[in-house]
């Protein structure tokens, strides 16, 4: 399995590049599916984690830990399983580039 991993990585990159070519707004659209709970563009209105402006690595680590079950959750372990690696990567990248509410990034 280990030998396949780099190949899978390349494949994922190609797939993600193809997806981005299909619609340049894919990351924005996917991130918008989080906004119901986490606020428009991840600027939480309160009571939920702020995603806007969080480092991409940190967001991605959280999402993958939710998905694997390593990070305890009430609901995110179930929701994160609905997104592919490429989609989670796009989402984390999108929120990382947003300025948090009320402050410059």
């Amino acid at each position, binding site marked *: 399995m280990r030998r396949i991993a780099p190949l899978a990585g390349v494949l994922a990159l190609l797939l993600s590049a193809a997806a981005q070519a299909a619609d340049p707004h894919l990351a924005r659209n996917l991130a918008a*599916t989080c906004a119901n709970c986490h606020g428009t563009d991840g600027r939480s209105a309160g009571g*939920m984690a702020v995603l806007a402006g969080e480092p991409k690595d940190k967001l991605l680590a959280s999402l993958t830990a939710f998905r694997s079950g390593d990070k305890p959750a009430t609901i995110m372990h179930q929701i994160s399983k609905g997104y592919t690696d490429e*989609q989670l990567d796009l989402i984390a990248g999108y929120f990382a580039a947003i300025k948090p509410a009320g402050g410059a990034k």
Partner: protein
Amino acid sequence: MSQHTDFGRRGFIQGALGVSAMAALYGCAGAGKGKGHVVVVGGGFGGATVAKYISMWSNGGIKVTLVERNAAFVSCPISNLVLAGEKQLSDITIGYEGLAKYGIKVVQDEVVAVDADKRVVRLAKGGDLAYDRLVLSPGVDFMYDTLPGLNSAAAQQDILHAWKAGPQTVALRRQLEAMPDGGVYALTIPKAPYRCPPGPYERACMVAHYFKTKKPKSKVLVLDANDEIVSKKGLFTKVFNEQYKGIIEYRPQSELRDVDAKNRTAILEFDKVKADVLNVVPAQRAGDIAAKSGLKLVNGRWVEIDWLTMGSTSTPNIHVLGDAIFPAPTMPKSGHMANQHAKLAAAAIVNLQAGLPPSDAPLVMNTCYSFVDAKNVIHVASVHAYDPATKLVQPVKGAGGVSAAPNELEGQFGLAWAKNIWADMLT
């Protein structure tokens, strides 16, 4: 005709020329911003969200007019807490003024007719609005014609649905308050699909919670037309049988056939049930303006749409959102889902108005929190991704699920969910 066309057809044609120039740049400078005028009918979870996101994502390039008959938005989610006396109507009421900063024009009126050929809608107060694209997000209307005894204004004044939050919510609360201890509250549930699958069971719990704390001799009788509890079955069954043992009685396969409004009696196939407070949630279909504008319907009730754009499959330039559509497999009719439909439609409309194709990989997800008492909540969640083979959004296997048990942490998340989704649509 066409009195309100300050950004009408001429502007659209000029915009279209600009669009081809932008389309030429597509790929190096990103997508065009889109032009034209979109009229949105209905300012609920779907309509308000699509108005905001079209404006936001087109950077104001697309003009948006939102037509809503009510002065303010009143949320169905959390309204069962108002029924239980745990919240006030003012806690679930939000004005539309927050949409002004996006350049959205909010018109308090009702659209009474759609001319799809001329691309014009007629307003009840008089005048027409021309559109390049029309988004209908009218929610549901009730099929009172299936319940002759309830098919009059007088009967509907006594026997409430409270399935659209607002004055009915307050009126049903008053009926519950006026009911003497030892009385029976009966709630009838129509066959699925209806708005908010877990909503009736949450309502049964919240009314039982009120009775348990304030009128302990009273009963909640649930008359469900369905074969079993439609949503979060295991969790609700446990709550009914344990937390509300002796208070809630649940009767499946008990379809309401008619209502004797004067005697507050539910007429079932083999039985008549008299209640002190009778709360009838009637069968539903797409809201009038969507159901009666010549759009293709499924089962004569729900609008058939294309899942890449939320566009009507029969009528160009008309998109339909929320509870009014024929849902994709396992997709609930919920406010959360309507908000997700709105973002799918907004992304597609902004692309289409810029001469670009819609995304070929839309994804939507749902979260629904139900209160079982003032503090404890259970959820159901799901994720639905577009499948090119069936041309539908399909539930993603292995994703989604329900709470392990009612818990206070999700009680806090349930309220935070409401705060955030209201902000996502209205501010």
